[in-house]
């Protein structure tokens, strides 16, 4: 385990590559298990689909593994230490957990592979969950995925955890820190799935592609304002990094400016990426032109002829 001063040590010693940097700074069993289960199910699914004659393309599988690997690296390597003791790396960590990682996971469209990889008894058990359990869960999911609530939650979580007094306690208490990171990752997956998954994959939760573009643009604006506010603020907003010590010597304002820029520009650019993906869906999805998708699509050609 490298000591906290290892960053400096690594610069002093000629050997920079050190396997210890790949080990968790703090081991979070929830994160470790979630990643292991996701990879195990996906690998099983890949094998099952290959046997079934419908192998998954390399690109999709690679995208999925890259998404899992990025999220894992953000939480279970030395990055986690740096994120606890450097504001801009904390922002980079959240850019991965809330934006880049979930986008990759959603673009890989892993649902079918994960289902094929789930052991049959478990799948049967999940199907047999009584409706009085399933219905409230579905309702809760519906509420979270409401086209007004989902973007509010997405932006609201960023603002919530970046409120200086709340940020202070999240960095001081390991449980809050873990809650913060899990909330970002789960919300990231929910939001980007709602934005980027093809409509036919979303079933009843689907919202129109035009609405998605409006939401993607709308969430970019407050992120840009918050990022600019942090980057251009003339005094340190987050005292916790001075209180607990920074990972290496950097002026508090430089740290804050870099963190603000990471909140401002790449986060907003993810909305542009999102819009491009949605436009791609619109051009390739035969149901895209209609308001209610599959309900109306078959009816229209019949009516027009």
């Amino acid at each position, binding site marked *: 385990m490298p000591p*906290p001063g290892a960053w400096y040590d690594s610069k002093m010693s000629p050997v920079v590559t050190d396997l210890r940097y790949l080990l968790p700074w703090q081991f979070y069993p929830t994160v470790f298990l979630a990643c292991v289960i996701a990879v195990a199910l996906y690998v099983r699914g890949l094998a099952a689909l290959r046997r079934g004659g419908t192998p998954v393309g390399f690109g999709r599988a690679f995208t999925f593994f890259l998404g899992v690997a990025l999220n894992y690296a953000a939480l279970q390597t030395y990055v986690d230490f740096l994120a*606890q*003791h450097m504001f801009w790396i904390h922002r980079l960590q959240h850019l991965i957990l809330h934006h880049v990682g979930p986008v990759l996971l959603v673009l890989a469209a892993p649902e079918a592979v994960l289902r094929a990889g789930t052991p049959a008894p478990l799948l049967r058990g999940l199907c047999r969950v009584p409706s009085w359990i399933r219905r409230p869960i579905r309702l809760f999911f519906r509420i979270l995925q409401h086209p007004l609530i989902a973007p509010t939650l997405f932006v609201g979580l960023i603002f919530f955890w970046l409120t200086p007094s709340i940020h*202070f306690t999240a960095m001081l*208490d390991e449980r809050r820190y873990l809650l913060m990171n899990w909330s970002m990752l789960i919300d990231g997956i929910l939001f980007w799935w709602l934005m980027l998954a093809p409509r036919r994959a979303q079933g009843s939760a689907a919202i129109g592609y035009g609405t998605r573009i409006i939401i993607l643009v709308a969430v970019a604006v407050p992120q840009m304002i918050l990022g600019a506010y942090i980057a251009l603020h003339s005094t340190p907003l987050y005292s916790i990094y001075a209180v607990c*010590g920074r990972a290496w010597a950097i002026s508090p304002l430089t740290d804050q400016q870099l963190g603000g820029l990471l909140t401002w520009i790449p986060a907003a650019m993810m909305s542009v990426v999102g819009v491009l993906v949605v436009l791609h869906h619109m051009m390739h999805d035969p149901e895209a032109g209609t308001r209610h998708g599959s309900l109306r699509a078959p009816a229209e050609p019949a009516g027009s002829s």
Partner: protein
Amino acid sequence: MSVSVRTSSALILALLLAACSGSGPPYALANVTGLVAPLEFHLTDQNGQPVTAAAYRHDVVLLYFGYTHCPDQCPTTLAILASALHALGPQASQVRVLFVSVDPRRDTTAVLKRYVGNFGPEFVGLRGGQTELTRLSKRYRITYHYEAPDKYGDYEVDHSSAVFVFGRHGRARLLGQVDNTAQQYTSDLRRLLANS
């Protein structure tokens, strides 16, 4: 029935007590009750004796990470704490300031003993190996790193500025920062001594 009445009355009493304990004016230092891990360590004191948190369970403890070659922050902070303890009067004997060295290579027990002796009898110098220091830095979520040495081999250590304040029995209560004054420490310590 009677059990549930007893339970609920106990619950109400507990809520009232909680409300009372939280009803005073806020502390001048940041309140970190429930956020920071209880006091726990295995280190060596300035007399070379192994020591754990159990030795201080009857005291209010101030935990600070620093190093004796520190040019500015450590002496300033320790001077503020010394002045706060001086103002406490006889009650200061129930308070301990634990100065944990993050530079054990230079801070031998003899160096530590001479250094903390400058600030008062309540000051204790502690040191440990990198393994124990790493464990402590994870527990208290602080860090430190060594700057490049100059031509004489002297180097500075960048470190946390937090003063963790523990009530009796090692319960984390407050967090002192660089802008806190001696008067603020004195009044907060007085309150902690009275009700912890």
